[in-house]
């Protein structure tokens, strides 16, 4: 994959982002609910309403509002949140690391679970463990992530109160982060107590996100592995005396990963969107939770900023997936 190709992809992303910006800008203004009306104190006069509208630029025609907003965005200014009275950019940046860490842990967990389950199913092909894997993946796929979240809260938070069910970190811990990436930072700073605490808080929401993805990945990977195990190169290494486990892990898996990587990349983007419900259920302070609050408050600048953020993440994820694809498949690299 050449630099030119990367630059081309990034350039193509711009009209996509502009399209997303137009759609979200218009939609949030068409949907019922006036943020100014929600802010009105008792006794507010028409002048007060007019002043508030002008303050947030809501008195201008929609087209003019859009041009002003796009101009600001291109200069890196995403506006000020109406409900939180802070810059949208800084609000999103302060919450994004929490969501990214959660999603990365969820994807890592999903991949690990899927790899173990798929390899195990193919290893024990035709026997009861394969049936168990197939049955469990079917069941897990049928249950949406938020339901898993509720189940985990009930079982592992209430019935067996082993894990915390809200928040990102124990509020009584004295932790002064330099970045928003708490997990990575505590690992680097060797703050094990805080690291364990962060993991404890992350485990249930990450698992809730990971399970449906793991089930989907297991099915795809299992299919790819079975195909790969029937290839000539596998027959060759089998003749050479490789054990079945070694063939699966060291030979077949790498080639079987390609469709799984594509699926993971696509699902990663959906997973970021899926954090909205999970973060709300677990009171996890990421951009998903922020999005719910923004919609409830009709915080137009914040909604716009968050939607653009999701769009950028989607585009970047696809780019990373393409790059990973080229690393895994030499044919793509050479193309």
């Amino acid at each position, binding site marked *: 994959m050449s630099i030119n190709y990367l630059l081309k992809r990034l350039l193509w992303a711009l009209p996509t982002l502009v399209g997303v910006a137009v759609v979200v800008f218009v939609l949030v203004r068409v949907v019922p609910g006036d943020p100014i009306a*929600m802010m009105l*104190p008792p*006794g507010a006069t028409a002048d007060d*309403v007019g002043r508030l509208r002008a303050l947030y630029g809501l008195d201008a025609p929609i087209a003019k509002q859009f041009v002003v907003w796009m101009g600001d965005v291109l200069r890196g200014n995403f506006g000020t949140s109406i409900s*939180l009275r802070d810059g949208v950019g800084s609000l999103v940046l302060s919450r994004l690391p929490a969501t990214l860490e959660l999603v990365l842990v969820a994807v890592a967990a999903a991949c690990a679970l899927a790899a173990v389950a798929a390899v195990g199913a193919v290893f024990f092909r035709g026997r009861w463990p394969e049936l168990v894997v197939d049955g469990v993946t079917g069941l897990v796929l049928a249950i949406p992530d938020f339901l898993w979240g509720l189940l985990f809260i009930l079982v592992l938070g209430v019935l067996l109160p082993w894990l915390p069910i*809200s928040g990102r970190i124990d509020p*009584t811990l004295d932790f002064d982060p330099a970045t928003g990436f708490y997990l990575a930072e505590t690992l680097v700073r060797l703050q094990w107590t805080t690291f364990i605490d962060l993991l404890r808080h992350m485990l249930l929401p990450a698992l809730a996100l990971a399970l449906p993805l793991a089930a989907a990945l297991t099915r795809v990977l299992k299919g790819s592995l079975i195909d790969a195990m029937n290839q000539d190169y596998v027959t060759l290494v089998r003749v050479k005396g490789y054990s079945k486990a070694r063939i699966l892990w060291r030979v077949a898996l790498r080639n079987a990963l390609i469709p799984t990587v594509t699926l993971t990349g696509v699902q990663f983007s959906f997973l970021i969107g899926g954090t909205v419900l999970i973060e709300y259920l677990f*009171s996890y302070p990421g951009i998903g939770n922020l999005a719910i609050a923004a919609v409830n408050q009709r915080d137009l600048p914040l909604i716009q900023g968050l939607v653009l953020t999701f769009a950028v993440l989607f585009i970047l994820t696809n780019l990373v997936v393409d790059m990973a694809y080229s690393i895994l498949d030499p044919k793509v690299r050479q193309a």
Partner: protein
Amino acid sequence: MNPFTRRRFLQATGAAALTAPLANSLLVPTDAHAQAAKVLTIAYNVALPSWDPTTGPSAVNPTIQSFYKAVFDSYIDQEPDLSFKPGLLTKWGWNKDRTKIELEVRKGAFWHDGSAVTPEDVVWSLERAGDPNSGNPIQFVWGKIGNFAIDGQKITADVKEFEPSLFKWMAFLTGYVLPKKAYTEAGAQGWESKPIGSGPYMVDKFERNAFIRLKAFPKYWGPKPAFETVVFKLVGDASARVAEIESGASDLTLEVPYEEFDRLKMKSGLTGVAHPVSDIGMIFITNVEPMLDMNVRLAMIHSIDKKAIVDKLLRGYGTVIDTLEAPQYAAFDPSIKVKYDPELAKQLLAKSGFSSANPVKFTIQTTRGFKPKDYEMIQAVVGMWRKVGIEANIETYEIAKHFELRMRHGLAPAAFYNWGNSIGDPSTSTGFAMFSHSPHSAWKTEDVDKMIGPLWGEKDEKKRIEGYKAADRYIAENGYVIPLLQYSQPVVHKSSIKFTPHVAGFILPQAIKPA
């Protein structure tokens, strides 16, 4: 091939040695972690958007006043029964002809940065509140006093326009004293990262939309709080709050569904308190057809069995009301009663040519899930109406839409809403809800304006209260609004702590003690 090799045994043992302590660290009962620190943990339902309790939309949000009350002092404080007591002001009042106000500032109060609270701070706070450019949403009250003068601990000011509820507002929304020096040095943005109050708790750590950690202020002028550290955890989902209290991860929570409340209070180690708060459920009537027909309005009111709604839907957690004044409010008149009489309702409708065969039809708007059982209540009301000859079509909308429609007088003929009133003054309930010039009223007619209008500036307090009672009676007799019930706030807490309910619905950590 032998699967049990020495290499595999060593690998498995090493893995077990690593994962066992990790699993042990990860899977520890959450209680154990909570008990390690003697901290009061409250699972709260709303987030704090801003640490400025005097400007912006958060300043008029009643649900976040609990945070402000812990960190800042009001000019005048409130007891749990809404009666007033000294805050940073030890004395307050009007002069004889009500052309001036006189205030006395408490001695021995300190800001969290160690500096003393001075009358200059009080004057600056009041002047800032009254400045139209400050963004104080209640500026229309604070702006009615000015020309402040300080003499020792005493402050006097001119009354530009008489406001009967001025001193009540000093205990209510935006009625907080801020430090002049610290605020002006920090600026609005800097203030958010280091708010300084004079209240019983200091802000120790604030993670927006996550948690607030407070530490007791050692130089607080009032009683020392029982808990040194308080944590407010934001838990927006009601089922998650139920799980928080049930698992022991939190010591107290609020606004859980009534069914869960009944279940939780029976559990060993938990106590439930459902107390009436200054929040009522009501149906706005808009002065459009068919509501212009008094027979229709009165029939709507007489056909609603409010007691059945409270008993059956809200499991008895609520108080039936017949005016917009709850029993704890200053202008509550228990003699104003509107009886449940479906036969009377049918007779009234018949006078206007309506019946079950020829029902009067209109739309009623309601939220769904914004207040406990809001949609279900309206369903019940519509069912009761149907029996007498009223056919109402339910339209659900979000609270944001309600505000928008109300502001432009565009609500449906009937619309369900709740109305909070933490000072219990009739001007902030009947006044704002029924006066046609208020952007919050739905029924806008001159007859009500003639009754309420003169009360805004009435200097005789007794006459003012009687005036509102008369207005409430008139409104009830004409069916201009349908008050339904006063809400009860369900609070569940560990039995190891003692919680005193506050009629304004505040959760004040400074008032919570070990049992």
